[in-house]
Each structure stands twice: as C-alpha cells, then as structure tokens.
C-alpha cells in the first residue's frame, strides 16, 4: 500500500510538464532547439535526427507539493516515525496547483540550408496533460463545519481542471534572416489527433446549510476522443464507460481528427553579442471528429438526514432507505452524452529569451516562459550559463524559478564527434540528488547527425 502511495506521489512529479526545456534551450548546435523558437538557427548546413531517438522529451511537474512536504518526521510518541502531515502539505500549496505531464518523441527530423533560408521537417508524436487542482481541495480535511466558529465550511471544486491531448504533428519550418540582426522563423504543422480528454467545466460544490443540511451541486462536462465503449440504461443515460477491447492502432493514429498549428519566432541581435528572441508555439487547433464523446451531468442533491416518515406511517418498502438514497443520488447525477465533433487548441506557450555571448566559450542567457492552464497564467524564468570549450563539447548550467519552486538547478551537455551529436539536458538536477523534495522532473536527450 505504501509503495503504491509513494508511486502516486512520484507520479505527481514525474508526469510531464508542458513547459521547461529551459537548459536545453541554451545548448549550442542542437537542432531540436528550433522547436522552442523557430527563428533559431543552431545548425550551419544540415542535420538528420536519428529516427525515434533524435529527440526524446519527458517533463513532469507537481507544483503543489513534494514528498517531503507531505511526509515528515513525527513528534512525541511518533518521534521515530514518519507521519502524513496534511497541514504542512497544505501550507506549501498555492491557491491553484498544477499537475502536468508532457512527452515528445521525434519520429523523424531533418533540416538543411537553402540559400539564406534554413528549412526543417519534423514528425513528432506529442502528449500533453495538465491537471489544475486548487488548494481548497485540502480544506476537505476540515470537514464541512467549523465547530469553534459555528459556521459552515463549503467546498468548491470549480477550479479543478483536466486537459490531456496526444497528437502527431508533421511540421515544416523555415527561418530566414531579414537583415543582419533579425531572423524570423515559422513552423507550419499538420496535426493528426490521437486522443484527447478535457473537462469543459467541473462546477462541483458541497454546501452545508446552517441547520446541517447538505447540498451537492454538480454541473460537469467532459469531452473526449478515444475509442470507448459506452453503455446506456433504458432512458439513454450512461451507465458505464470503458476503453474498447480491440483498438485499431492504425485507425487511432490515422483518424479524422485533423488540424493545423503554427509556431512563430523572431530573434534580434540588439547589440553585438546580445540576442533576444521571442516565440509563440503551438498556436492552432485540432478538429476532433473520430470517437468523440461529450459526457455531462447537471444536478443538485440535498441531504437532510434519514427520512423516517415511512417508518412512522408504516409505508416503508422492501428497499432499504440507504439503497433508495443511493439510487436517488445516482439518478440526480446521471450522465448523458453526445457524439458530435468539437475543436480544441494545442495548449500553446510563449517565451522570451536573451543570450549574451560574453566570451567565445561563454554565454549567459535568460528565458521567461508563460503558458496557461484553464485560463490561469503560469510563468517561469531561467537563468543560464553556457560554456563551450571546444566544438566537441558544449554545456549549460541553469537556475530556474518555477511555479511554487524557487530554486531549480539544471544542466545540459552536448558531445559531438564526426558529425554525430549526443545531447542531454535537465532543468531539475536537484530532483536527482534529493527526490523527496522534487516537484519537477525533466529530461531531454537525443542523437543527431549534424553537418
């Protein structure tokens, strides 16, 4: 049980975040950095990413808390034990917290210079998942009544938000220097959606009235695109949902869920040795048409205690009161579904970078990234020091301020020999050394042929 519990916690920090890649951004000569800003021109002539291993990215984040926030040394009779400290855990959380995951696999990638233009072609499979969970969830531990103040404690889960998407993108990118200091870049992407799930709304609340009566409101809606088997009752309400037994993988990856996206970027050498850049990535949409479902439920359930009226009148039926209550509860929140198509965005990001080439072997950089989860702005900032003692070696060390994690040390390394390039980077070295305090996990690595 404990193993599973820890697994859940680790899962929180090992699922992949949408952003990060900040140390990776400052690695010299790695062609995949164009995925962060399409105006970047890291390669002089051409490159080929080794199929499937040219670019592998795994990011994870749980901004709310770390293991050590939840599990702490006990006191008193429990001094030699570890205890679950919910109060401390809650104190570490922000009003809204992010549980996020991102994975990307570059299936195919190559690029070449044609005149002044550098052209790149990528085929990537990408997965993004985000869960926003409010700190108020922790208030559930207080129950539903503040006994000392004699006031109700009401709970709302309206800020709970889930969005996950998996798609394959075929991207054609180009960067072009419009003068000696400014380079613009763009990447156009044809998208093929594989799977999607998102909470359109999750307005669930538990309200306690002055006399102790409880009211549960629910107005929730989820949309999803995935091969599912849905079962219904005689009134057309959903009774069960599960994955289809035999999923046709080919159909899954080549479905009618198509869309387009674009990344736009620019770099500007403001003064000699100082270049700033800006990019917006993953602007676009996917029109989900295959295996689509919208599940929604709307109802209010009032609980006023066990109704003993039937016992008094002798009208009680064969079914127990609690069975009837459970049935009423289920009926109140019965789920309906639609199968129409819908359109979603790609969870876009925006970044601004600055890079100062202090010495030919030393560069200093900074990046500010922003993204949105359920319309909530989440920024992060990284400062980097890059050292490139020779063409065969490039390295970077970073310090990042991330959501609810002010100190993250990262590092990256590029080794190059005979055109073969091996790179690896992480924004969260401290996770390796002290996993119990980790809120973020991040790694990016790959192998390219670079000319």
């Amino acid at each position, binding site marked *: 049980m404990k193993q599973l519990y*820890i*697994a859940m916690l680790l899962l929180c920090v090992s699922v992949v975040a949408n952003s990060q890649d900040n140390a990776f951004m400052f690695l010299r000569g790695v062609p995949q950095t164009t995925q962060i800003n399409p105006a970047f021109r890291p390669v002089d002539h051409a490159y080929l990413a080794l199929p499937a291993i040219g670019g592998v990215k795994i990011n994870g984040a749980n901004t709310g808390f770390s293991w050590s926030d939840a599990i702490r040394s006990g006191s008193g009779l429990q001094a030699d034990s570890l205890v679950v400290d*919910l109060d401390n855990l809650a104190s570490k959380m922000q009003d809204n917290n992010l549980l996020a995951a991102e994975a990307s696999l570059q299936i195919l990638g190559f690029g070449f210079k044609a005149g002044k233009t550098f052209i790149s072609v990528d085929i990537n499979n990408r997965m993004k998942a985000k869960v926003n969970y409010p700190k108020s969830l922790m208030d559930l531990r207080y*129950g539903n009544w503040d*006994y000392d103040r004699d006031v109700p404690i009401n709970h709302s889960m309206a800020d709970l938000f889930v969005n996950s998407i998996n798609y394959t993108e075929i991207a054609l990118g180009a960067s072009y220097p419009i003068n000696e200091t400014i380079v613009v870049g763009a990447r156009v992407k044809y998208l093929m959606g594989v799977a999607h799930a998102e909470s359109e709304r999750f307005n669930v609340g538990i309200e306690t009235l002055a006399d102790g009566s409880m009211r549960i409101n629910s107005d929730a809606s989820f949309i999803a695109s995935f091969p599912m088997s849905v079962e219904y009752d005689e009134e057309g309400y959903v009774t069960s949902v599960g994955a289809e037994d035999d999923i046709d993988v080919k159909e899954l990856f080549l479905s009618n869920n198509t869309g387009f996206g674009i990344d736009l970027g620019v770099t500007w050498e403001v003064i000699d040795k100082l270049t700033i850049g800006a990019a917006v990535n993953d602007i676009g949409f996917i029109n989900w048409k295959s295996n689509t479902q919208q599940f929604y439920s709307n109802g209010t359930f009032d609980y006023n*205690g*066990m109704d003993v009226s039937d016992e008094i009148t002798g009208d009680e039926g064969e079914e127990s009161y609690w069975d009837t209550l459970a049935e009423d509860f289920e009926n109140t929140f019965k789920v309906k579904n639609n199968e129409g198509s819908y359109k979603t965005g790609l969870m876009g990001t925006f970044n601004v970078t600055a890079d100062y080439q202090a010495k030919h072997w030393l560069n200093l950089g900074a990046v500010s990234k922003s993204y949105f989860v359920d319309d909530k702005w989440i920024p992060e900032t990284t400062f980097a020091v890059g050292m490139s003692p020779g063409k065969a070696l490039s390295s970077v060390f970073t310090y990042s301020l991330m959501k609810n994690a002010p100190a993250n040390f990262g590092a990256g390394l590029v080794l190059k020999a005979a055109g073969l390039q091996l790179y690896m980077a992480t924004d969260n070295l401290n996770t390796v050394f002290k996993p119990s305090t980790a809120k973020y996990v991040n790694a990016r690595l790959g192998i390219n042929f670079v000319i």
Partner: protein
Amino acid sequence: MWISLLVMVSLVGCMGDEFETDRIVDDIDLTAGIALPLVNTSLTMGDILSDETDQVKYYKDADGNERIMFYQYNDSVEYVGLDDFFRVSIDPVDVPVPFIGFNVEPLLEVNIDIPFDISDATISKLELSYDLTMSGSSLAAPLAVTVAFPTANGGAGKELPFEIYNNQTASQSATKDMFEIVDGKLSALVKVRTLNGETGFGSTIGSLSLGMSNVKLSYVKGSMVENAITLDEGNYPLDFDVLEEVPGDVEFNDPKLTMLFTNATPFKALVAADMWGEVEGENNVNLNALPIELPACPANQNSINYNYILDKTNSNLIELVSKKPQNLVYGGRLVLNPESTNTDEIELYGEDRIYIGYGVEIPLDLRLTANIEVDTIDLAELDFVENLEKATLIFNSDNGFPFEAMASLEFYDEDTKSVLETINLALLKGALVNETTGIVKEKVQSVDNVVLSDEQIEKLNISEELRVRIHLQTSNYDDGQSVVFLKGNEMDIKLSIKGKVNNK
C-alpha cells in the same frame, strides 16, 4: 499514463529505502468539523393514518375542519328469532301395542295427541322442521308403524313410516310441515301392523314411544305475553390496531358505541345487555349501560331499524375505550312484548328476527400522556463516538400536532450497571390549541441545541448503550384540555449533529 504509473510502481520497488516507507505510520492525524443531518420527517395525520383505511374515516365539522374518527361497524353480530321467541317443549307419547289384537286384525290404529308446551305463548298453527323418533319395547314381533298427521299441510296430511324392532329406536326427519295446534296439542294417528304378518300372539302388550326433537320453527301463528329471552354470551372483537399504537394513558373525549337493532316482529323489546371490555392482563371494564327499549315493527313495514347510542352520558364508555380492550363481551336478557302490550294473534316467519349489531366511533379528541422507550443504541458499533471531541445535538421542529414530546437520553455503562448521565431535552413543543374546541390554532417552531460538555462526552465514550426514552403529552394536558387531531395537522422535525472528531 498507465504505463507511467506502472513504471513508477516498479521504480518505487527499488526506492523504498530512499523514502523510508516502513517508518510511515498508517493513521493520519486529522481533526474535522462535521455537521450532519441525522433524521428528518415531515408528516400529516393523514400520512400517519394512511394505512388504516378500514378503521379510520374523515369527516368535516361545521367549521370545515377535517376531523378523524376511528370506527368499526357490524350490524348483524347476533340475532334472536322464532326458536328463541317460542321455546317449544314436546314430551314423548307412549302408545300401547296389544299383540293379541293382531290375531284378529292385521292393522291396529291408535289416535294420540302430541303435547306442544310453549312458554308465554298460545299457538294455533306452526310450520316446523323436526325429527320424529320412535322406539319399541316389549315387542313380541317387529312392527311396521306409520305416524299420520291427517290435518297437516292444510289437510293434505303427512305420514311417516317406521320399522320398529324390540328395544330399538328409529328416526325420520321432516321439513316444513304445517301443523294445526289445538289446545296445545297436535293430533296424530298411529297405524301399527306386524312387519311380517305374523299372528298367534299371546297376551303380550308392547309399547311404542313417540317423540319429536330438533324442532326448528319457520312459521308461527298465535299470540304472546311478556317473554324473557336469555341472550347467549358472545363477544365483538374490537380490532382497533390503530388504537394499540396509541401509547400510554389515553382518554378519548367523546367515544360512542352505537347499538344497532333491526326488529321484524310486531313486539316491542327491552334489551338489558351486560357488556364489558376484555383487557389483556387487566380487569375487565364494565360498560354499565342502561336497558334499551326497542320499538315494535309497524304493521306496514317488514322491519324497523333502531340505533341506540352509548356515550359518556349513559355509560362507562370513556373508561372502557381508554383501556383499549381486545373484545367487547355481551350477554343479558331481551324481554319481548314487555308488559304484554300486544295480545293480538300474529303471524311470524323464520326471517322475522331481531338483529343486534354495534358500531364504535371514536373521534380523535383526546388527552394523552405516555412514556415510550424508543430505542437502545449500541454505542460499541458507532466508532465515531470514540473520536468525538465536541458535539452539539440540534433539534429543529415546526409542530402542528397538539402534543409535545420530551426525550431522555441515558448513557448506560454495562460495567457498573448504571446510568452515567441523563440528558433531558424538549423534542417538540406542542402546537397551540383553542381552549374551547381543542383544535390547533398555531404551529410552534422550536430549536433545541444540546451542547455536550467534555465530561458528558467522556461519559458517552465509556458507555456501552444509549437509551432513548420519550414522553408524549397532549397540549395543555395538565389543564385537562382535550385536543382534536385533524387530518391536516402537520409537523416537520429534523435532528442534526454538529461536532468535532479526531481520528487518533
């Protein structure tokens, strides 16, 4: 996602020591405040009595109030008829048989008179069903005997044959033969011959005994003087299930027991009934009702219905009903034609009876005081009680019923066999009633918060049982007020708990 989870579980297998999972204690220190509605009810009197459709009826009074009445009717529990009015007694008649006569004549005929003794009546004609029995003694030979009633059935006559052997009895049944009775006697002719035609008898004189039994009258013509009839003892089962559910001492204000009579005879009657209620485990309660005078049926009617109401003014009915008897036992006498006021010759048929029935009507207009042991709650099964740090019980009521309820909660300790704590609280305040009519004039709302002290919670924690007793009392009971329950009386009750629990 699932693959990630599996990978993580696998990783954790390797990382267990890193996180020292073996040192984690299972229990989480958690103090939570709770507010929980426990029970509620919203009822009207109509709801409560909805299952009692065969014993409860609603009726509107002059002010439009829909009142409630428990009732039970049975209009033909008992009857008295011809056989009770005319108690016929017939003595056997002996017929001598001189056998020597058969040596001369094969047939011997003897005229006899069968005496009909009927108390308090003079009868000239009757129709009856009966068994005619005959036995023989000192018979020298078996006989073939025919009993003939020449005047029976309007002159058509009636004959009944017998084969009589010595010291044996033979019987014949007959139905609805009409006989003329003269001077209290029925004339008959007995014809006797030997069964096999034997002759040569000596001086032997045999004897035949002729009797009439199992007489059932279906018609009588004659006259009657005052005639006292004993009523067989019987009982009316008072199946008032709903009364059994009324707890404690109850005093109904105006119950009524209606005696229902149907008289098809031309005679008045005086019913002096003894009636009492049978109460299980207690002394019977006598109704102490006065004799009831029943009118005669007019000549131009087949019958007359007559209801006589017993109530608090002419009987002990209030006390009888308050004891909620299982049976109403009856007996006594019925005097037909008292003081012989009708001396006419009359004709009565089998269906000319006097039926006696009853109807009980108990309006829900009452005073009540009752102690009820509602329940004993096994606290050992309620884990959360051990974790209770603070607790307040809240009783919300909006009562339109004309009674109040007080509860007594006892914390009982099995080890010391003692009640550690008793908490008394007002569950319901009685609705306000009109002092004259006893009808509810205003609902009463109340909120009673019972805050358990730390000491009480400690006692609750070590108690094994929570005993709940309730005392019910109608509004203004101590003032002697009788209250009226209406179908529309309603009440809302809600019991909630607010508290603080710690899972240590």
